[in-house]
């Protein structure tokens, strides 16, 4: 694959199966009243690709991935997820949400349900699995994120890192084709960040398509196929981790990286 495609977010690119894009974003705008949160975003994500989105706060990174599963509605442009176009049609939205898992900055676990039920609720209530089948699946996923012994506790009894791993298991329980991560480690104490990042790395190695908004540059360098730098609602620069971190072309990218590294 030539380096060309890595530099243009709008090209079918970057995937290990490069001619098969799973997410296509074309000319997307998002406005909050007078404020333009996203301006003309063009981007494609290939199957099994790991894309890390970086940028200063308020640059629209979170808004971008929240548009992909319609937690925010985009104003102009098109978003296609695995061939389904995001429209106002609630059936399409549900279809896409079933195929995209999301992990939030603040975990957003359901505090009134046990850890096991938190993970099992998706398969049970959306995919219609039986109680025992959904709990079996949940247990399997909790084992995968290495906290099966916490199944019967409530979220508040767990540490932040454990909670975020439960949130990861909960999203995976829907067997999504794409995983969206919205600053998954920003609310964690430093000593817990690695356990979550490790779980994410494993997921990437297993071939999950991932879009990760994060400030963990080490993670981006190690795991990302492509890094997207955003500023003021625009995609400023795209490239492989080494291109972006070692050899940034744009002035804004250089400035941002000099501030955080």
């Amino acid at each position, binding site marked *: 694959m030539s380096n060309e495609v890595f530099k243009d977010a709008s090209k079918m690119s970057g995937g290990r199966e490069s001619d098969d894009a799973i997410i296509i974003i074309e000319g997307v705008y998002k406005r909050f009243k007078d404020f333009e949160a996203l301006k003309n975003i063009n981007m494609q994500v290939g199957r099994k690709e790991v894309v890390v989105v970086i940028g200063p706060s308020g640059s629209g990174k979170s808004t971008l991935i929240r548009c992909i*599963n*319609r*937690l925010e509605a985009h104003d102009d442009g098109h978003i296609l997820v695995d061939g389904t176009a995001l429209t106002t049609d609630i059936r399409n939205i*549900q279809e896409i*949400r*079933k195929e*995209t*898992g*999301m992990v*939030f900055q*603040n975990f*957003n*676990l*359901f*505090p*009134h349900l046990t850890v096991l039920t938190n993970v099992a*609720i*998706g398969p049970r*209530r*959306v995919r219609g699995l039986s109680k025992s089948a959904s709990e079996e699946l949940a247990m399997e996923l909790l084992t995968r994120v290495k906290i099966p012994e916490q199944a*019967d*506790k*409530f979220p*508040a*009894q767990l540490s932040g890192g454990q909670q975020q791993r439960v*949130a990861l298991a*909960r*999203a995976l329980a*829907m067997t999504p084709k794409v995983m969206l991560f919205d600053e998954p480690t920003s609310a964690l104490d430093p000593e817990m960040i690695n356990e979550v990042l490790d779980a994410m790395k494993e997921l990437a190695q297993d071939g999950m398509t991932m879009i990760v908004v994060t400030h963990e540059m080490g993670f981006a360098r190690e795991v990302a196929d492509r890094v997207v730098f955003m500023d003021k609602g625009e995609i400023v620069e795209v490239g492989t981790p080494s291109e972006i971190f070692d050899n940034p072309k744009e002035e804004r990218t250089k400035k941002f990286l000099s501030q955080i590294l």
Partner: protein
Amino acid sequence: MITWMRRNLFRSITDTILTVISASTLGYVIFQVFQFVFITGRWEIIQVNLKILLVGRFPEELMFLVGFSILATCFSIASLASGMNRPLDQPPTLAGKLWELFQRFGLIISTSAFLIVLAGDLGAVLFGAYVVLSIFAGTLFGRARRTTHLKRLPGWLWVAINATLPLVLIFLTMGQAALEEWGGFLINFYLAVVSIGLSFPLGVMLALGRRSTLPLLRWLSTAYIELIRGAPLFVLLLLAGVALEFFIPASIAPDAIFRAVTVFTLFTAAYLAEVIRGGLQSIPKGQAEAGKALGLSTFRITFLITLPQALRNVIPAQIGQFISLFKDTTLAGVALSVFDLLNVGTAITKQDDYLGQGLIYESLAFVGLLFWVGSYVMSRESQRIEKKLGVGIR
């Protein structure tokens, strides 16, 4: 002890003055109450009229139905309580358990014992024994659920099994004796329980309606809530007494108790709706977003995620509404001439034997006591539920 007193009661001159004043006031009040209760009070009026105070002119031959309803209810409550899955914390010690039981039921038990002594006949004593037995049997049944193969029973079925018998008996009781024959505390209790049961779902629906994205539904709910909350309950009750005659011929018009239940339900639902709406607003937006991200439908997000948390957050305010509803049932006696506890209480002082003897104090004290016990138990239970549901949350 001395140091404690010095530190907490007589720390400064102001403290000392306040201590002396409040101690003497307290002493005076206790003395007066003691004197009234044990010396000057003439409690035979309560003793003689105990049955009419509690159940009114309920037919004697059907009393056994009331008795069985109470027994079945005690059984079910005990069974449900002990059949619940225990929280993960270590099990309480026996002494802790007894203390908890005393805290929870001590007041009810002593009140019941007091009533039995007042009634002073063998039937009452036997009935008390049956109540204890049915609670014990219920506890065993509940424990069987936790320990035997009944464990596999789904929760809703378990609740249904337990709820069926008391409900059937209660409805049977209601069907057997015409509602006009009811009276006394039974009426207040019935009004409160039925209105609470009906107003809760209505209140939830109104709260959801007010937050709905459909404008018509939202406007209707808001208009209803604001209209009802702007009117005094007493006026609504009086209105229910006369207004229906405009629409329905008197011959088929519903009786006073039906009207009272309707008004209490509609009234409490409006307040409850606001309480629940407050609860819904306290749930962080991320909860609904997490539900959406999983692909849950709006309906399921509401009923599985946001509403359960909202209801739990506002338990004290909800129970507060129910307590005031319970006490407000006395208004139905005045506004709709329902023969409730307060009406009975004032009526018995006008019996030939007691007329003009100023026994209204004794009578009102008894009425007040029953309401206080009921309200206090509800408030204690609400704190307990709150604590229990608060285990390991947030």
